[in-house]
């Protein structure tokens, strides 16, 4: 099993390397020149040329890539071109906020979607199952930005229950609720819908299996059958479903942070794109990749750990 996990880690590292190349090429395809953008229209050709040299922009692309990669490995993400603060510092100030938002969303959506998925699978074909199915399809189909905008209009502007802008204040419970209710609910909607559907699908197949029938014929009570006989075998698929849903959160975060003007990582990245701040964009992109890879890795380790076949005899 350890060997499997080690191999899985190796795959993750290779994928990250490939991603770094893609991110580098992608950001270099963006139109415009950083030196021109930084110095504005009044810049003299000499000044532009000097800045280019200072930023290593004259070097060949492969060389710049290697420089950047070496920096990444040692934790040096470079300096923001727009604010002249180190990228690491910029990200550090925002990362916690983003993790807080994502963590709160996960803490709400994982239990809710597990409960919904499990009950829908157990009561398959009932009215409850059908209502859940319709509700989740509807929730998946509505785009994040629409949900976020409608939520702001309804709850912040019309009803004025919550502020339209969200700030990471967690000093007291009421404060937490007032700043996070809207963004967390918006993000959770899509996650819960997706994850509960996948949980249900994973569990339905197992509830049809011979060993669940055997558990029934042993006279076990329904709760024990689901929790002890069906769920452990669904853990792998469910963990993977959770990882995929939560990783879609990374994309959702961008829209939600922008709509609610929340000072998170995604907002930082969007701002960096508008100022053409390459090192910042690249670092943010790599962080999102890393987040995704870690989620999928955790899900895989979870499937490996819950499958006795992959454990040493």
């Amino acid at each position, binding site marked *: 099993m350890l060997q499997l996990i080690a191999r899985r880690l190796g795959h993750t590292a290779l994928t990250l390397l490939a991603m770094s190349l893609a991110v580098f090429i992608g950001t270099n395809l963006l139109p415009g020149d950083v030196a021109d953008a930084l110095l504005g229209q009044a810049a003299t050709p000499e000044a532009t040329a000097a800045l280019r040299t200072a930023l290593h922009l004259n070097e060949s692309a492969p060389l710049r890539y290697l420089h950047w990669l070496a920096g990444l490995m040692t934790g040096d993400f470079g300096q923001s071109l727009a604010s002249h603060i180190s990228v690491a510092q910029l990200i550090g100030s925002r990362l916690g906020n983003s993790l807080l938002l994502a963590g709160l969303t996960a803490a709400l959506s994982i239990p809710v979607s597990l409960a919904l998925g499990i009950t829908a699978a157990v009561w398959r074909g009932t009215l409850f199952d059908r209502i859940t199915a319709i509700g989740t399809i509807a929730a998946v189909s509505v785009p994040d930005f629409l949900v976020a905008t409608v939520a702001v209009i309804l709850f912040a502007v019309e009803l004025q229950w919550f502020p339209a802008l969200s700030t990471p204040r967690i000093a007291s419970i009421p404060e937490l609720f007032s700043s996070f209710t809207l963004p967390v609910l918006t993000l959770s909607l899509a996650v819960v819908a997706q994850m509960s559907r996948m949980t249900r699908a994973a569990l339905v197949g197992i509830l049809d299996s011979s060993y669940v029938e055997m558990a029934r*014929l042993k*006279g076990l009570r329904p709760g024990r059958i689901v929790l002890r*006989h069906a769920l452990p*075998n669904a853990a792998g698929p469910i963990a993977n479903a959770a990882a995929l849903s939560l990783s879609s959160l990374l994309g959702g975060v961008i829209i939600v942070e922008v709509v609610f003007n929340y000072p998170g990582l995604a907002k930082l990245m969007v701002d960096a794109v508008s100022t053409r701040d390459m090192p910042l964009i690249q670092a943010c992109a790599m962080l999102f990749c890393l987040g995704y890879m870690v989620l999928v890795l955790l899900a895989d380790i979870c499937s490996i750990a819950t499958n006795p076949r992959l454990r040493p005899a």
Partner: protein
Amino acid sequence: MGAQVEVAGLCIAARRASGAEADIVHDVSFSAAAGEVVALIGESGSGKTTTALALLGYARPGCRIRAGRIHVGGTDVRALRPADMPGFRGRRVSYIAQSAAAAFNPAHTLMQQVTEGAIIRGLSPRAAHIKAVGLFHSLALPDPDRIGRRYPHQVSGGQLQRVMAAMALMTDPELVVLDEPTTALDVTTQVEVLRAFRAAVRERGATAVYVSHDLAVVAQMADQIVVLRGGRVQEIGATARILSAPENPYTQSLLDAAPSIHTPPTAAKPPKPAPPVLEADALAASYGGPVGVPVLREIGLRLLPGAVLGVIGESGSGKSTLARVLTGLLPAHGGTVRLSGTVLPPAAADRTADQLRQMQIVFQMADTALNPAHSVGRLLARPLTFYHRMGGAARERRVAELLDMVRLPANLATRRPAELSGGQKQRVNLARALAADPALLICDEVTSALDTVVAAAVLDLLAELRRELGLAMVFISHDLATVRSIADDVMIMYAGRAVQYGSRAALARGPIHPYADLLAASVPELRTGWLDGLPPATEGTSPGAARVVANESCAFFDRCPVRLPGLCDTTPTPTQTLSTGATIRCTQPEAELLRLGSAITSAKATSAQPVT
């Protein structure tokens, strides 16, 4: 103590896709006295499992016990409320399922699953553990003290089936329902499991309901037989009476179709001497490349046009691998295959279209071999276009001819596989192979998934095709009786090697390899008392998997009753040619093997004479 069982007027309805309900079990009535074993026998779709599950008050999803009385030990099963179920189902009535591999939860250890039922009913985990180990001992499981720590995938099928029996007996049930508990097992394993089951049920005096399609197995286990067909009772009677004097024509047809190693083989005229259509020499194959796990070693064979070679062995013996190697699906890494004298490339991809056409394979599961989205006509037209570039009316005519050849009506061409019965699907599967116009058919367990009567009809068809078309066949099966009824030559495989290869007559006359003897002795006979008459397993031998041998010594050593310790297990086993012309791989001299009261040779003198 066993419970008295009474079923009267039982009707079970199933909901069809259209939403309408229809009965699948009609007015079934039978009873069992305390401690009696009743067998429910029938083919697939006869309602035997559905009826048996009703004894636990259980109906599969989509089914409903609609009417009738089910009384088990004075309890009206249909009157039980869900809250009463844990005190009844799994406690007073327990169930042993057909496939232990599917019925055990892969995520928990065997011990957790065996003791679960007793522990939730108040037994202490410690006491439950001790009781389970005791049951493992009495069911003759290897390493009974520690086998419970393993996971289901870590023990063999036969062992798993016995662990399931332990699980069923943990709560000292009054009634045990056994649903085809040995169908998925090899014959040699089946004997061990049947013995263990019967001893365990008898010892406790429990009543048992034994569900099976195999009359010979049932004859060993049951006091009373209920014959079911299409959800209706055909005949009920004492086992001996049903076997000797069946009153119902359907029961008679079941008895007639049961394969037996005593039935004289269908007389086929011996193939004319001609250059062999298929020759293989020193074939070797392994999974995972030449350095991987060897699965086939030093296989040689020779097949004349129109001849049938039967290949027999238990699961894992390499018989299906041989089919895959001959057809090039798994390229051999050593040895040669010649088709009509030409050496074939090892991989199917490197063979010419004509070479591929001449050798066709028919797989065991027609369900998975036939594309469910295509009509029968399209399934048969495809090889005609591919191999013969046929089209239009000529192709349609040929499809009709092919259907006629396998005795199917021509209008079946518009149907899809899902609309056909199991036997019809296997015939289409066969027609698909015949469409290529092959010289050689490789049949891999083609009758194993079929009911007895249907299987017998497919075997007849194969014999006819061979006569009419002069087809040569490699017929692979785990069933000695089936192989003997159709093959001219027989190869017996064990652990990837041919331990005996020779004519059918040589196999019948003996001497034979000790493994062939064990196989023959393990085929249940259609008479009561066969299992009791079997000699107990030889002292010191252990049933189970083949021995992993590093050198060329004998893989059968651990199970062999005539082994020579210090010789068979250490030195390479020689291949000797017997006076019958058969070659066997065994260290014992021919005279010694002849003395071995061979089951085949002794049985030939009919069961009237006592076996000495």
